[in-house]
């Protein structure tokens, strides 16, 4: 228990409250982190975890409550203050400057300076290389951050936080975009820091990670503190029920569905630099999982099929008819729905109302005499929002005020409203809490049962294995294995996913 540690907590928050306008994001947040420990912070979407983090970081100022660092009362007015006090934070959303070099991103504002306060670039690059070496990654310190994959971006964030040499390190869902190998590396670094006596806070929706890495866990619900336990003294089920305040139904409620005709056929799809000669098919009622490491090119394949991205060669057919390339609209007309991986940037217009978002794709059919009114949209959107149990007070609320899980429901409502033949869904539950996750899974299962063909991309192996009828494994832009539900074991998938890099990983493990 943190309270029993000899020197007292490095970071302590008690009954901290924070509201935005009339939205109460944090009612009474409490956490106490002792030096030399890794403290998990868990809770459903919108529980207030990130808000708590941002208060510690000085992004927001708390409205009330106690905030102590190493036993002293503090009150940060900006992130510069918290940095100066020895707090490093990895935020949930990446905070990189795309135009600047990777190194500058790490050292911005505290670059090593030489004579005349001139930035010492050589020293800076050397330091960056040293950091990357410590993390076991190879990134050119001079390359710009633009174009880095999400995983690489997250690595830069981690390097940035570590380089601060802080006594308190907070990581808000750092693993959301990382693959197994990278997660392991991160954990090794985290443990190293813990052993140096630093206090770490780790936020994640993945319980396996929490139980593997952390020693203490604090649960939050609805802006309130719920409980703090030693990891050893608790269990996943216990934490989950505290988080949601109820029992969660089965996480992967896969029901067998009748598999029908081929709906989607992809033949020899290639795009220079991203994927090659990709061929597969999806049948009605079937859930096909696309597994692989992050950066394998799964999203790119999906995007090309839907027509958002171009491809250089190959063909896509839906129900036997060719789907024109590079036209999402044609794909929609053909009966394809696509739930993209980045909800806020691609899935939703977050500043538009729920009604407009839900009706976004079907609005063409809502006009009468060419006129489209809010009323038409509301009438059409209402039932779909209801069917997915979107939680909102009114249809004109903007999606930006909603939690991630709710936003995902809006995206699903928008696409289901098109009554598609094929649903492509990329990372259906990324950043979504357990409760909603089960709901989404049940929904997918139901939809498949109704004869919808589903292509599901997921970086969470349990999700793929639990939900898919058939698993395609992508490695470096190629499909390296096709496994039936029975054959799809974690080992088989991982083996195929690392087909070409297995050698390197083995070496790494022994090194």
């Amino acid at each position, binding site marked *: 228990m943190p309270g029993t540690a000899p020197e007292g907590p490095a970071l302590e928050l008690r009954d901290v409250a924070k*509201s*935005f*306008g*009339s*939205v*109460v994001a944090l*009612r009474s947040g409490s956490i106490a982190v002792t030096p030399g420990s890794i403290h998990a912070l868990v809770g*459903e979407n*919108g529980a207030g975890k990130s808000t708590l983090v941002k208060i510690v970081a000085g992004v927001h100022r708390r*409205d009330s409550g106690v905030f102590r660092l190493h036993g002293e009362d503090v009150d940060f007015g900006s992130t510069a203050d918290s940095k100066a006090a020895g707090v490093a934070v990895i935020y949930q959303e990446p905070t990189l400057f795309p135009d600047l070099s990777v190194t500058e991103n790490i050292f911005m504002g505290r670059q090593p300076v030489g004579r005349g306060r001139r930035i010492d670039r050589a020293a800076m690059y050397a330091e960056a290389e040293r950091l990357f070496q410590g993390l076991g990654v190879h990134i050119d310190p001079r390359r710009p951050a633009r174009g880095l994959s999400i995983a690489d971006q997250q690595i830069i964030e981690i390097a940035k936080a570590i380089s601060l040499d802080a006594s308190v390190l907070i990581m808000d869902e750092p693993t959301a975009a990382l693959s197994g190998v990278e997660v392991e590396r991160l954990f090794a670094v985290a443990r190293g820091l813990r052993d140096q006596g630093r206090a770490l806070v780790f936020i994640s929706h993945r319980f396996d990670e929490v139980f593997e890495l952390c020693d203490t866990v604090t649960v939050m*619900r*609805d*802006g309130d503190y719920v409980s703090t336990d030693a990891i050893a003294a608790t269990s996943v089920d216990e934490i989950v029920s505290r988080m949601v*305040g*109820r029992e969660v139904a089965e996480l992967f409620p896969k029901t067998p569905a009748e598999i029908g005709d081929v709906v989607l056929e992809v033949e020899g799809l290639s795009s220079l630099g991203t994927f090659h000669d990709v061929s597969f098919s999806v049948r009605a009622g079937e859930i096909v999982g696309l597994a692989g490491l992050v950066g394998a090119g799964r999203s790119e394949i999906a995007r090309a099929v839907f027509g*958002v991205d171009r491809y250089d060669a190959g063909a896509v057919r839906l129900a036997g008819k060719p789907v024109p390339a590079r036209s*999402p609209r044609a794909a*929609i007309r053909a009966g394809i729905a*696509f739930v*993209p991986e980045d909800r806020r*940037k*691609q*899935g*939703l*217009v*977050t*500043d*538009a109302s*729920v*009604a*407009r978002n839900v009706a*976004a*794709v079907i*609005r*063409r059919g809502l*006009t009468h005499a*060419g*006129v*489209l*009114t*809010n*009323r038409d949209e*509301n009438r059409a959107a*209402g*039932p779909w*929002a*209801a069917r997915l*149990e979107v*939680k909102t*007070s*009114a*249809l*004109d*609320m*903007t999606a*930006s*005020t*909603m*939690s991630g899980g*709710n936003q995902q429901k809006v995206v699903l409502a928008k696409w289901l409203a098109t009554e598609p033949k094929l649903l492509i869904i990329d990372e259906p539950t990324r950043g979504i809490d357990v409760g909603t996750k089960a709901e989404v899974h049940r929904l997918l299962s139901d939809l498949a049962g109704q004869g919808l063909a589903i292509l599901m991309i997921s970086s969470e192996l349990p999700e793929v294995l639990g939900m898919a009828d058939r698993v395609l494994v992508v490695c470096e832009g190629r499909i390296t294995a096709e496994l039936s539900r029975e054959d799809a074991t974690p080992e088989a998938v991982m083996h195929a996913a690392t087909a070409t890099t297995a050698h390197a990983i083995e070496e790494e493990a022994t090194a």
Partner: protein
Amino acid sequence: MSTATVDRPDARATRTYPAYSRPLWRRVLLTREFAVIALLAIVYFYSNANVPAFDGPLTLYYLFLDIAPILLIALPMTLVIITGEIDLSVASVMGLSSALIGVLADAGWSIPTAALVAIVVGALCGAFNGFLVAYVGLPSLAVTIGTLALYRGIAQGLLGTKAITEFPEKWTDLAKDRIFGDGSSYPTILIPFVVLLVLFVWMLHFSTFGRGVFEIGLNDEAAHFSGVDVERTKFLLFVMAGAVSAFAGLYFTLRFGSARGDNANGLELQVIAAVLLGGVSIFGGRGALHGVVAGVVLIGVISSAMRLQGETVNKINIVIGVLLVLSVISTTLLGWAQGFLSRRRRSSTPISGSSSEDGQRRQAAAATESTNER
């Protein structure tokens, strides 16, 4: 959070949602657009009572004649700005269209054919802008600074020192005619304007195309992902801006009976100032045509009233500039005031369980939270 009740609703219990989170009067009255309209009304009635000769029969007539080009171009410009782009070349297209009509009329063409050619050329100018912005993906601010110079240069190159002033009286009179006979305050140019206004209101506010326009401004990637043809939409808007500007150039030429390469020089900033004053966000995604029309008329009324007061252009410029600055910072000021009020209220009442009735304030807060992004 208000909606975070955790108990699961009964299986498939269909819930219904209210359409709006706040009452009609708040949705109508508490908007930027309404603020501009209210200000317009205040200025108008104040001037009517206090400015000599403002209540005369000619004021409105001249006012409409003067602001007609801005009114016209503001329509497509609103849509362009809502998509997050900008078109600085509109005044140059006006100049080019004016020069072209002059040259063609001089060569003996009839006005309608010359006008048709000018409008087609205007549309082509817009298409060139649109192609570079939408399909090549260049920033519109940079592209249209370039075409601002290019089109103006062509206009001046076409006419040189000449100013062509020989236009059939029939047509120059038409530009200044009044709709309801002598003495009425409404010039005929209002007819095409109203037609275009109806068209653009339908396009922006009551069509699927307009929904796409707003979505592109808020998040063009998401719009692209849900099947909005981002490129084509932007392209079409620039074409419209070009064509309408050319039409405004035609009106300008006929009203003054003079085709010159430097006609309407600098008008682009006036159009943009009026559109922004009307509540359109320069970041895109927000705005409405009734606000824009009120913004244009407001500038016209202020200029007219101040001129009648004997003020010259310098003071008018200052007032318009101050108004523009105030109009954008007012949103922030309002947000501060709201935040201050709600803080006071909260400190006086204990933190209560959240309720949904203040949804509209949350939205207002979200709206004011416009970041510094361009």
